[in-house]
């Protein structure tokens, strides 16, 4: 067991090194000039000022040296200072991550529960109307980009029906401290709904397949021959044999959830980690961008580890191999 943990931590370390190096390379080669993005497009710098800023930020040094300098301070626990917000990256992330976590958590739970339920329903009614409806929904949604769905929801629910605000986490012009809980929820609904709606498709289709296999299995045929009713078959065998793959999948889904939240938050101008990531990329804020990238890598990695643990807990055949 300790060996397993060490191995996992080692894997996480190499993952983070790889991800950050790749992200750094991409930023370094991006057409966005961090200094120009910092001072704004309409400010003209003299060459001397420009060179001074380059030297101040260390941009005149070779890229490998820049990366190593950054990596060195990361190891000491220092994420650096955001060039956009002028405060430590850790503080920016801390304030934004909460909002994203709520969004992703709700979407994760909703899509998991609803997706599993729909998948089971489709498998039980395979070939009938309910199955076709669930399949149609899932195929449509999984071929729909999150940002597009977000825009459709905005057009329908905010613009046409006027049920929900167009964006942000609270009413425009009201200080964050004065936004009521009800207002927060009101602003929260559409982004959460967008993320959930997309997530449902994945889990529903996988559960449908798994449950169909289970219902066609020898042990379910035997259960029928033993006089178990359809309800008993679901309770005794159906959930037991389809839950582990569903839960595993849902934890492994963390990565898509994170990617989805980036898009959904941007569409809804929702001040979470995702929209901050977009800002950081467009504003040339390298420390903030890399910080968020690292965090998201840890987040996804954690999801996968939990998936493995849960899978082993639910399936004794996996436990033996682990």
């Amino acid at each position, binding site marked *: 067991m300790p060996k397993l943990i060490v191995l996992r931590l080692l894997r996480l370390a190499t993952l983070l090194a790889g991800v950050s190096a790749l992200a750094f390379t991409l930023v370094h080669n991006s057409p966005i000039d961090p200094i120009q993005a910092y001072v704004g497009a309409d400010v003209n710098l003299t060459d001397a000022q420009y060179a001074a800023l380059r030297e101040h930020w260390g941009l005149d040094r070779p890229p490998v040296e820049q990366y190593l300098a950054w990596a060195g301070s990361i190891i000491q626990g220092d994420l650096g200072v955001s060039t956009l917000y002028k405060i430590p990256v850790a503080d920016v992330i801390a304030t934004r991550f909460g909002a994203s976590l709520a969004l992703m958590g709700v979407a994760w739970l909703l899509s998991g529960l609803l997706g599993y339920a729909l998948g089971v329903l489709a498998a039980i009614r395979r070939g009938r109307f309910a199955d076709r409806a669930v399949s149609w929904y899932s195929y449509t949604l999984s071929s729909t980009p999150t940002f597009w769905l977000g825009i459709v929801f905005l057009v329908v629910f905010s613009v046409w029906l006027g049920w929900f605000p167009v964006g942000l986490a609270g009413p425009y012009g009201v200080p964050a401290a004065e936004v009521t809980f009800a207002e927060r929820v009101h602003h929260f609904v559409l982004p959460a709904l967008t993320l959930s709606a997309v997530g449902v498709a994945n889990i529903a289709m996988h559960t449908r397949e798994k449950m169909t296999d289970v219902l066609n299995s020898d*042990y379910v045929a035997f259960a*029928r*021959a*033993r006089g178990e009713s359809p309800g008993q078959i679901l309770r005794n*065998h159906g959930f037991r044999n389809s839950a582990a793959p569903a839960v595993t999948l849902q934890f492994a889904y963390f990565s898509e959830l994170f990617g989805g939240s980036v898009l959904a938050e941007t569409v809804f101008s929702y001040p979470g980690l995702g929209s901050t990531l977009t800002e950081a990329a467009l504003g040339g804020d390298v420390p903030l961008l890399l910080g968020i990238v690292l965090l998201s890598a840890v987040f996804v990695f954690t999801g996968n580890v939990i998936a493995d643990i849960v899978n082993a807990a*639910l399936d*004794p055949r996996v436990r033996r191999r682990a």
Partner: protein
Amino acid sequence: MSEPVLAVSGLDVSFVQYAKGLRTRTVPGITGLDLEVAEGEILAVLGASGSGKTLLAQAILGILPHNARTGGEILFRGSRLTPARRTRVLGREISYIPQSVTSLDPLMPVGAQVRIGLDAAVAERVRRRLFARYDLQDHVAGRYPHQLSGGMLRRVLFATSVRDTVRLVIADEPTPGLHAEAVEEVLRHLRELAVSGVAVLLITHDIRAAVSVARRVAVMREGRLVTMETADAFTGDGAELRHPFARDLWRALPQNQFSPGGTEWHS
């Protein structure tokens, strides 16, 4: 003679398949099958793969594939086995010992699988008794199927089928893949069931197993009952067998399986 426990008459099973486009064709599975099993009797149904013997079991239990059509009549203790009646008698009066150990739920401890269908108040006590009867240690109850040997899983399957109220046991190929000793054990368990008054329908392609345990042997080929022989007739060169197909089957056994006169193992 008293009323048979199971009486099958004129049973037809066929499958509807899509041929070309939307045209369907019907593939026969079983045609015009008649047989009866009495209380305390073991009737062996003998046939090769594809002869329809497993379909017979599935038809009685009502677990045929969805595209199957059935005709004819199946009487259990004198009245028709309708779907409604099946929900009352399956697992209580009729039990099934399936062919494959994959019939056990891979994610449920075997003890819990034996308890299914038992009255919750006595389930654990009955489970212990059944485990003792089939020579399974008590701690095995908490194990999952993948942790047990094939022989142990067969015994677990037997334990799932034995209920005080059972009148008919349908055993589908309970012997293949087992070594001689284990086969003998399975057959002994079937004999015990019959002695306690249960009617046993043993479906098998193992002639020696069928002959050594049954009184009558029904031989099936291509969905039809070819002949009903007495087990005693499977002896010597098979001259006492009434139907040439049964004689062929008997004579096709590898010669080295015979002892001189062919009586030693079936006496």
